[in-house]
């Protein structure tokens, strides 16, 4: 178990390291260095920056020096001070803009995953235990539909329905009166009442696939001899299904959720853009469109790291749940 944890954590660290390189490459992709662009922007707005400050920044980010030195300085900044560089567009350190949005991003992502689990497991179990029933066909069809509808389209349609039927804007995560208010119980409840829409949107496309996974896993298990044994013991159908095949089918399911995580993050991102949620998504889009590369690189990096951590957690969960891995 301990070995397993060590191995997985090391792998995750290695992945994070590669992610940092990829993110750095993204920052370097556009021609010219960011400081020149930054200065140009400031000058356009009629501001003057003292020479010493420019020199200090040059030194700090290693501009003009070889790539690996720049990479090293960038990484050192992140690890030591949480300094991800400067946003050219906003003219402030990237980290300042990111922190509160990350919390909400994680929140939307987690609630979507929760939704996926809560829906996919029972529906998958039902579909498998009632294979080829009308509801099974219906769920399968809805599943395929969910896979086929792009997140943003679903978001658009929901917004359109909300707008034209209920006459209200379903976007955002807070009602106007709470958007700038400090945290309170009321604000939290308000957040929850807005959260279900992105949760539903991101959820549907993923529940679809995961229902199918769960159903297939269940079908693999449901005719296994150990289930027959349980039935022969005289357990009720309900109890034996939930105790035995579901429990076994959950293991590959948990690892599938790990694999789905990267895509769920993508879904959250694009949905957030349409619904205009105060999460990382719209910020990334804006940064990319205006070539604000420190910002973009930082966001790509943070999203990726969060995903890797999420996958690691789901791996650990799997190990906790499955005695076969636990004892390895």
């Amino acid at each position, binding site marked *: 178990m301990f070995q397993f944890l060590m191995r997985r954590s090391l792998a995750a660290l290695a992945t994070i390291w590669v992610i940092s390189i990829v993110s750095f490459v993204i920052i370097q992709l556009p021609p010219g260095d960011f400081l020149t662009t930054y200065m140009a922007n400031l000058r356009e707005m009629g501001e003057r920056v003292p020479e010493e400050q420019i020199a200090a920044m040059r030194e700090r980010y290693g501009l003009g020096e070889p790539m690996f030195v720049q990479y090293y300085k960038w990484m050192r900044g992140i690890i030591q001070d949480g300094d991800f560089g400067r946003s050219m567009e906003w003219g402030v350190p990237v980290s300042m803009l990111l922190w509160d949005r990350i919390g909400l991003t994680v929140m939307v992502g987690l609630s979507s995953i929760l939704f996926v689990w809560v829906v996919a497991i029972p529906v998958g179990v039902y579909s498998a235990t009632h294979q080829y029933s009308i509801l099974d066909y219906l769920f399968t069809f809805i599943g395929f539909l969910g896979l086929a509808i792009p997140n943003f389209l679903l978001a658009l349609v929901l917004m359109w329905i909300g707008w034209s039927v209920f006459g209200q804007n379903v976007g955002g995560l807070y009602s106007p009166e709470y958007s700038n208010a400090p945290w309170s119980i009321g604000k939290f409840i308000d957040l929850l009442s807005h959260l279900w829409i992105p949760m539903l949107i991101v959820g549907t496309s993923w529940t679809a696939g995961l229902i199918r996974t769960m159903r297939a896993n269940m079908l693999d298990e449901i*005719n296994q001899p150990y289930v027959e044994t349980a039935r*022969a013991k005289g357990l009720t159908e309900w109890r034996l299904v939930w105790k035995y095949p579901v429990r076994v089918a959950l293991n590959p399911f948990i690892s599938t959720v790990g694999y789905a995580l990267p895509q769920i993050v993508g879904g959250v991102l694009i949905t957030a853009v349409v619904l205009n949620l105060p999460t990382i998504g719209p910020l990334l889009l804006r940064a990319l469109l205006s070539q604000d590369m420190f910002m973009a690189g930082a966001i790509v990096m943070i999203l990726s790291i969060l995903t890797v951590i999420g996958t690691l957690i789901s791996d650990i969960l799997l190990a906790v*749940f499955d*005695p076969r891995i636990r*004892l390895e």
Partner: protein
Amino acid sequence: MSDVLLEVNDLHVSFFLTEGIVRAVSGVSFQIERGKTLGIVGESGCGKSVTARAILNMVRPPGRIVSGEINYYGQSDTPIDLAKLDPHGAEIRRIRWGEISMIFQEPMTSLSPVHTIGNQMIEAIRLHMDMSKQDAAAHAVGLLARVGLAQPERLLTRYRHELSGGMRQRVMIAMALSCNPKLLIADEPTTAVDVTTQAQILNLMRDLQQEFGMAIIFITHALGVIAEVADHVVVMYLGEEAEVADVDTIYYKAAHPYTQALLRSIPRHDIKLDRLETIEGNVPDPMNMPDGCKFHPRCRHYDPGKCANPALLQIGEQHWSRCARAHEINPQLSRTEQPS
């Protein structure tokens, strides 16, 4: 109380598939007495496991018990027809494991991979017997020790994959006996283990039968094993009985070409053959059964004139054969035994 514990009458079980209907069991009848052992033999696919499942009313869709009776004389002389019970009902669930327990064909996977042995045993015990968790655990430990497993307490916390095939089979036997059943159905309990273990398990089952007094239905495809354990034998072929008799009659006075072929195919040490004897031809496609006598495509005694639609003929006091030419192929049968 009569001696009969379970009586199967004209049982029909079919699977309704999109490709057609598979009549896995078509008209099987037999009885088993208290404390005795009934062997069911037959080639792969002849419907042995389906019959066993039908007894516990556990045939699952697309399969269904089409007709027939399964009379169980558990408590009194008024039988319960298991075939008529609701397969999800409380009555059958009480009988399952509590009165009739079963060891399945696949010992390797008959235990859950993610639950401990203890969990699974205690669950069964507490379901049918009024016991606290501690008592149930103690009971389980006793049983595990009885079936010859070392360190039974520690075994309770073990998982399936930590056990060898022989150990798993012993655990299954212990579990099957945990609620003092009146009937134990053992579906090929020894196919997946090596010969030594096989002999040990057979001996164990015989001892346990003496001790617990339950009846056993012993399913196998090897006639050789039957000789060691069974009192009566049902030979099945394609969902029907080919021959029914007590074990000596089967061995010495077999009156069905299929039984005779099975007997010939037991490897013997005293006669050296160039090659092992096999039964000619293959088991026909279950969707597409031969007309008339089902065995005729493979039968060396087939005569279209005589073998039209053989019924199960009584040819001896406790001896039935589904062969129209039973007397011709077995000269040992005296003419006088033939019912008038």
